[in-house]
């Protein structure tokens, strides 16, 4: 036990945290060799831009999964929040900043509904409640827009999604997308939040054991509701970026986004059973998917094959995680976890 603890374990631990990092690096090296278009500033900035939205969604999904929950509605929470924002901006003509606030508040409310369904209505599993609200939010978005996109956002909203940090400074700043910087800031905030605040630690505790958390005097319902509110807010923020990027809010924008978010979180090493996971892992999970998508595009792999690759990557990433964590032994414990 002790011997294992010393060297091998330490190594494993570092590997454990660095798992998705290593995968990203390997993928990057491969792509750099295979296509000279990959390692260019423009392309890296492309990847940065393409990462930001899913980065926000994955962050929200991560806190849900940390409590052993899941938020399937995240895509259409994003869509509905942006539709509300777009309506306020384009049809009512409110000031852009107010519209953004409204977007975030809407996201928070939609998340709150998910949370309350779970904690107050006692629906047995967030899989069910958020599958329900996913349909509801989608339907409301379609009804509100009459199923057509709303375009013509005010400048500031587009700014978050499509602007670069600098403006004709002639330096690289002109290329770094604002959205990516915003995402980085948010990841930093979350890493503080999850490690150094009570709510953050309580999220891990609830995911680790909901009964024990309850017995330790943690307001479990509050924590569980919070994570869905957080997820809603992240979805709304991701939405603002998505709207800025495409200059429109459209009712099917959220379709299947939850899959990428879940995949990124799981690839990033967060345990599906809650209680384990870190922000850095999720960051590299998101990055892995973005780099993969970008790389396959550069390599002109057909989109059908891309679908296959994505599936394979999800499975391999999780499988590596299983092996890394001592395979069998851990799996035995997992099995116990699943059990009633």
């Amino acid at each position, binding site marked *: 036990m002790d011997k294992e603890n010393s060297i091998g374990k330490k190594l494993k631990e570092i590997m454990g945290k660095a798992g998705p990092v290593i995968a990203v690096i390997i993928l990057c090296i491969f792509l750099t060799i295979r296509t000279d278009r990959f390692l260019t500033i423009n392309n890296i900035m492309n990847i940065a831009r393409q990462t930001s939205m899913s980065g926000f969604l994955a962050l929200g999904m991560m806190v849900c999964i940390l409590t052993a929950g899941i938020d399937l509605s995240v895509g259409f929470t994003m869509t509905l929040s942006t539709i509300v924002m777009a309506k306020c901006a384009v049809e009512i003509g409110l000031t852009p900043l107010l519209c953004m606030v409204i977007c975030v508040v809407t996201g928070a409310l939609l998340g709150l509904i998910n949370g309350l369904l779970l904690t107050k209505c006692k629906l047995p599993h967030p899989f069910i409640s958020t599958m329900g609200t996913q349909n509801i939010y989608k339907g409301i978005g379609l009804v509100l827009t009459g199923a057509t996109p709303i375009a013509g956002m005010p400048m500031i909203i587009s700014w978050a999604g499509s602007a670069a940090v600098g403006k004709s400074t002639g330096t690289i700043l002109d290329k770094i997308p604002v959205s990516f910087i915003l995402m980085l800031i948010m990841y930093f905030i979350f890493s*503080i939040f999850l*490690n*150094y*605040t*009570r709510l953050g*630690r*309580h999220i*891990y*505790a609830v995911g*680790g*054991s909901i*009964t*024990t*958390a309850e*017995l*330790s*005097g*943690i*307001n479990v319902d509050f924590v569980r509701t919070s994570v869905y509110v957080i997820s809603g807010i992240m979805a709304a923020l991701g939405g603002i970026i998505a709207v800025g990027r495409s200059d429109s809010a459209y009712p099917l924008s959220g379709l299947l986004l939850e899959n990428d978010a879940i995949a990124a979180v799981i690839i990033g090493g967060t*345990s599906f059973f809650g*209680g*384990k996971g870190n922000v850095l892992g999720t960051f590299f999970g998101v990055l892995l998917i973005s780099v993969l998508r970008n790389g396959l595009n550069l390599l002109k792999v057909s989109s059908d094959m891309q679908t296959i690759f994505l599936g394979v990557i999800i499975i391999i990433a999780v499988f590596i995680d299983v092996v890394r964590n001592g395979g069998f032994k851990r799996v035995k*414990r997992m099995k*116990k976890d699943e*059990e*009633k």
Partner: protein
Amino acid sequence: MGETRSGTDVPLLEMRGITKVFPGVVALDNVNLTVKQGEVHLLLGENGAGKSTLIKTIIGINKPEGGEIFWLGQLMKIHSLKDAYELGISVIYQELSNIPCLSIVENMYLGFEKRKNGLIDWKKQRVCARKALDRVGLSDIDVDTPMEKLGMGQRQLVEIAMAIDRKAKLIIMDEPTSSLGRSEIDFLMELMLELNREGVSILFITHKLDEAKRVGTRVTVLRNGKNSGATMSVKDVTEEDIIQMMVGRTLEEKYPKRKNVRIGKEILRCQGLCADKFDKISFAVKEGEMLGIFGLIGAGRTELVRAIFGADPLATGNLIFNGEEIEVKRPRDAIRQGVVLITENRKEEGLILIHNVIENGTIVPLEKFQNKLGFIDNKKRLAAIEEYGQELNLRPMQPEKLAMNFSGGNQQKIVIMKWLISGAKVFIFDEPTKGVDVGAKVEIYNIMNRLLENGASIIMVSSEIDEILGMSDRVMVMYEGKQTGIVKNDGSIGEEEILTLATGGTL
């Protein structure tokens, strides 16, 4: 002991007329309990008597239908656990309650994080946790170790450290010793007395009457959710009195004698069994014989029996069943031979709690209940359950009742029934009476005796020397994964010899 330091006679905690009803059960009926300042108060009773329910009303987990609770003479209004903790009440729950994937220090301050500028002050927490761990004798364990890496006893001690660290005035301990070994128990008893000397009151729940008498000041007994007799001073009562109050009758003998047992031919022989946690274990059991396996906590007994059963891998060694070598890779290989394991953890490993007695009882030998076409015949299943239910005295005898709704002792009977119906020949019991009350214990011993009388063999792992000496024909003792001796339990040996072996000595 027992002297009140505050000089006043205001009780620390006073509960009056507490009534708690669960759907279909009156768990507590007008119960009174008074804990004085600076005493170790015993709360005793059979399984399901309402002990845990009572303490859960103190800390606000259960909202009682009737009754009042006073804290230092003031009517206590507790809305949440936090309120209770802030008053100075700490609880060590019956079920271990920590979060396995989090570190010791996190677990210790869960819900009571020390903060600086609104952020968690990890440094301070580590320092405090270190002190608390040293206090409970865990000085060689790092505070950042994940809880899941600790043994059960160590986890229990961490919980105690937690309670101490919170500077509680009252520490409630709900069966803290059920997963501890003898030396840990001794350590804990000392610690309790020491805390008590420092003025901390303790409300202590246990099924082990000997240890209760060692530390207790006064005792309150519950029976079927009611006070059974008045609270008395421990000095004034005998163990027999307490049992009488708990079960409403006296027990003739704690360890019933077997009649008509004929020890027959050897049935299972283990040769040189090795794996991670144990090394070169060899022994044999005969028909009608009970082999006890004793050891201190972490001696590797559970791992050994799990490996024999095929639940864990065996590195090397042979298993010989009825003279033939068998290969056991999975539990079903052992079960096929009739070697079965009744695990320590009946709720999670023995029962399917959400299924009823019929399902649980017949799940192993389902093929026995198939008709000619291969379909399962439910009438046959019911008949078998009724037959064995009568024999084991299952209470209540309701085949459709879900396993989760039975009391601990009766749940153990359902597990035994499952293996009886499967026609097992060698029964391995791991801590069969853990958390079981004195009355139910005797019932379980009676069942074991009947099995032996019918020619089965039993291997019983236990941490209670009394039980080992009271029941087994022979005793194997283990120390740190090694077998330190097999002795005949014919009166020639006693506690001392067993303990010598269990701590690595020789006879």
